[in-house]
């Protein structure tokens, strides 16, 4: 059975674990190297990307994460998780690094500050109907490499992308009880 880890350095870890649980998938929180080693797939949750990056670096998790994500571990990144999956980052904090893996340039906090946060219904390639997207100080994808499929866009900016076994969204599919995006990730990336 597939074990999906949720990076648990900071952010909405519990919401992702709950979504995985509703889908009948074994989820586990990941804060240590050995916990990462025990996972077949990974979720990078919403939260503060700078805090996650600093904690990952300090606790010697950044290189193991790069190693696993770079060698084919299926990974879903939401909001801050999208930032962490980007090969190239704009508007990061001084010196901010990412895990990388997805051939894209992401602009952090691109949709603005908290008061510019919004919710909207959007179409996602591979899903019927619309998905209710919650965007909180959300990033967007500035440009993608040739191997990246754009799954969803808002105002001309990609907000959902997939490249092989990696998927990322600007919004938070984990905050409402609609688990179709997690299902899509499990079906198409894992």
């Amino acid at each position, binding site marked *: 059975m597939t074990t999906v880890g949720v990076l*648990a*350095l*900071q*952010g*909405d*870890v*519990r919401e992702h674990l709950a979504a995985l649980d509703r889908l009948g998938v074994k989820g586990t929180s990941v*804060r240590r190297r050995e916990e990462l080693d025990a996972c077949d797939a990974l979720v990078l*949750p*919403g*939260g*503060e990307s*700078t*805090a996650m990056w*600093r*904690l990952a670096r*300090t*606790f010697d998790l950044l290189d193991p994460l790069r190693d696993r994500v770079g060698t084919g571990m299926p990974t879903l990144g939401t*909001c*801050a998780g999208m930032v962490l999956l980007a090969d190239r980052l704009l*508007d*990061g*904090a*001084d010196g901010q690094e990412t895990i990388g893996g997805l051939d894209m340039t992401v602009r*952090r*906090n691109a949709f603005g*500050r*908290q*008061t510019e946060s919004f919710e909207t219904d959007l179409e996602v390639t591979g899903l019927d109907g619309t998905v209710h997207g919650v965007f*909180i*100080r959300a990033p967007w994808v500035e440009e993608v490499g040739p191997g990246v499929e754009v799954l969803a866009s808002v105002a001309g900016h990609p907000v959902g992308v997939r490249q092989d076994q990696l998927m990322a969204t600007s919004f*938070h599919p984990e905050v409402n009880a609609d688990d179709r995006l997690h299902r899509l990730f499990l079906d198409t990336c894992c």
Partner: protein
Amino acid sequence: MLKGGVIMDVVTPEQAKIAEDAGAVAVMALERVPADIRAQGGVSRMSDPDMIDGIIEAVSIPVMAKARIGHFAEAQVLQSLGVDYIDESEVLTPADYENHIDKWAYTVPFVCGATNLGEALRRITEGAAMIRSKGEAGTGDVSNAVTHMRTIRKEIRRLGALAEDELYVAAKELQAPYELVVEVAKNGKLPVVLFTAGGIATPADAAMMMQLGAEGVFVGSGIFKSGNPAQRAEAIVKATTFHDDPDVIAKVSRGLGEAMVGINVDEPARSIQFAERGW
């Protein structure tokens, strides 16, 4: 998404930078930290907009700022400045001893303090998007934070044990809307995030509060009133993430230098009881 993170009080752009570099998920911009408000007395108000602008400019993480309880015009100003959260805070001198701010009237989210479940639910009814247990700010004494967090969590557990027809009276006793009380009874948690605040000064304090059920930590005077703010800030961030791992807490607690001196909550010198503000 601030969950599992640490929010730090800062009074200058330089301190905000230190907080961001230490891994804070947000900073709280204010003119004086609670320990100084306590020591200096006088009326404490919303910060100067120039100072808030300076902090917004300095960091890329969310910036919160405090408005006085009931001071809806200060809140309007803070929203127009573009802060990410407003803290309707008992640490400042209340502007209205009867009414809190109608927080539904704003697009910016609010965080409010609470000492018990009824207070938390009244703030949520008024539109608060986040609750922090009040503790006693500016003391470096964690005991009130513990009392308030334990009280809120205990009252939530108690609701869960009640029969459905007992929830009407529970709502009456909590002085909170029945629908909200039913929701808390059903889910076993508040409908918004519950952080802790007021007296957290060490990594072990943060770890204890997280183990008691806090979803994140506010640190006020504890960092920049200590001997080595950068290192202490980073240690408290690590302790919050690894709150259930004593080996990590032990490691990050080493060599931090002097903690804030602190004032015991029962000391007569401590004339102001911030936690008693708000109703």
